[in-house]
């Protein structure tokens, strides 16, 4: 499990590094052009090239995110089978119906699994696996990931949908609340314990 986590982190770092290098090259290239070059055909060519260069790595990054999610519920062989199946179905859908559809499927499944993780964590189930202990920390981590999945779904699939803004605010709320839970889990637990103790004393 730890080995799998570490490999996923290394892949994520490598992908982010590659995307970062492409962006740096693009930024430097864009910065040395004529002031009005965005109104020329050269700019359109630049955008096409940037898209071509960056999109495979963005897709790979999303796929890695999709693979990160089932690790909370499954381990060992099960995890490999489920991730393998997810990748296969995503690829088939992407080839048959388009990349957007394939990624939409992966994100939707990831979101559903994340909802299950949140429900199980809230009931204190031992089926979910986290690197760190603590109820609020685990809940926070799960909520952040759900928020990011919803955000990416909104960004990739719902950008032109009338509900785009509503979905965006829901994802933002999840990410923010998740971060507060995750970063301040000890403080929240202490505050709740203090309140419980006070209530007991009053009784």
């Amino acid at each position, binding site marked *: 499990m730890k080995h799998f986590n570490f490999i996923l982190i290394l892949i994520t770092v490598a992908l982010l590094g590659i995307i970062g290098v492409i962006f740096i090259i693009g930024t430097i290239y*864009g910065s040395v052009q004529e002031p009005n070059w965005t109104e020329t055909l050269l700019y359109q060519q630049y*955008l096409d090239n940037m898209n071509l260069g960056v999109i495979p790595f963005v897709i790979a990054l999303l796929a890695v995110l999709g693979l990160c999610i089932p690790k909370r519920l499954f381990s060992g062989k099960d995890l490999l089978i489920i991730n393998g199946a997810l990748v296969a179905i995503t690829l088939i859908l992407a080839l048959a119906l388009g990349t957007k559809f394939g990624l939409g499927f992966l994100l939707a499944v990831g979101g559903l699994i994340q909802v299950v993780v949140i429900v199980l964590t809230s009931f204190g189930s031992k089926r979910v696996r986290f690197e760190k202990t603590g109820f609020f920390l685990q809940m926070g981590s799960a909520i952040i990931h759900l928020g990011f999945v919803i955000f990416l779904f909104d960004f990739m699939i719902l950008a032109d949908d009338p509900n785009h803004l509503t979905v*965006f605010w829901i994802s933002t709320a999840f990410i923010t609340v998740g971060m507060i839970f995750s970063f301040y889990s000890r403080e929240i637990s202490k505050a709740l314990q203090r309140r419980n103790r006070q209530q007991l004393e009053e009784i």
Partner: protein
Amino acid sequence: MDISSYFSARELVESLGQPMLILAFILSIGLLLFGLHPKLQGRIQWLLLAIFLVLLAGYGLLAWFHIQIYNFLPLKDPSSGTIFGRYMIPPWIENEKLYFWSLLTSIWLLLVRKRPVQFRVVVYSSLPILLFLTLATSNPFQEPLGSFNQQILGIEQVLNTQDAKTQGLVLYQASQMLKGFYNSAYMWMHPPLLFFSYSVFVIGFFGSLFMLFKREKEYDEFAYNWAKAGYTVLTLGLLIGYPWTVQAWKGQPWWFSPKVNVTIMMWVLYTAFLHTRVYLNRKGMWRTTAILGILSFSAVVVTYLGTYVLPGIHSVGGR
């Protein structure tokens, strides 16, 4: 438009604000002297409070100026008297940004207590640096809201010299700018959240710096505590920029804006910095964490400087 009242307010801001900023800068240098002098170290909190109050008074002056803009510069059709809108400009645009950042930093410095004096003095050094940069490069009291002022002068000239059709066109363009940029709800949320996080990162950076050289757990925790607060606010601020982007740059490939890319890289670096803590028990991880903390803050500096150097919608020159 009551342009003469607007000019009077602008002059008042210039004449009162400049001495305030200079006073705050001189007092901030005093922080270093107080920190180095054993007899004065006990009074350093009072000096910090004085600097904060001077900066706050200056900020109050800027806020007052913005209220005067709202009162005196309505976008009004001279022939019909119809008011298209009033400017509700938040006090963190153009050359007010760095001052806002300095003000927030002065608040956080008040909270850095019960730490070794040597460390505190180094952390305090951030304020004179910020105030010097404000004075030298982004003084909000020297030609307040320069770009906005140019726009207003342009509108005023058209209203005084051009025919009704041109006036209508210019007023329409100005009202679009008012709605989509100056008065945008996102303008009240996106930039202040980012500057809030930048100011918090300033404090955390010194923790990483001391961790690298002193190698004490206390500094690592200090850096982490400030970084996680800044990161939460940074993430929220960046996310709020997204729907604004979709609205403002409809149909344009905003994701290749240099400033957006640099900012995302800064966020990624801080994400990596915070995640390394999961593996803090691994051999040598403390050094990686400290270096990442320093690199992340360097990205904050590059991101801010990008506003002046990189082309695009975030460019100071572009607005």
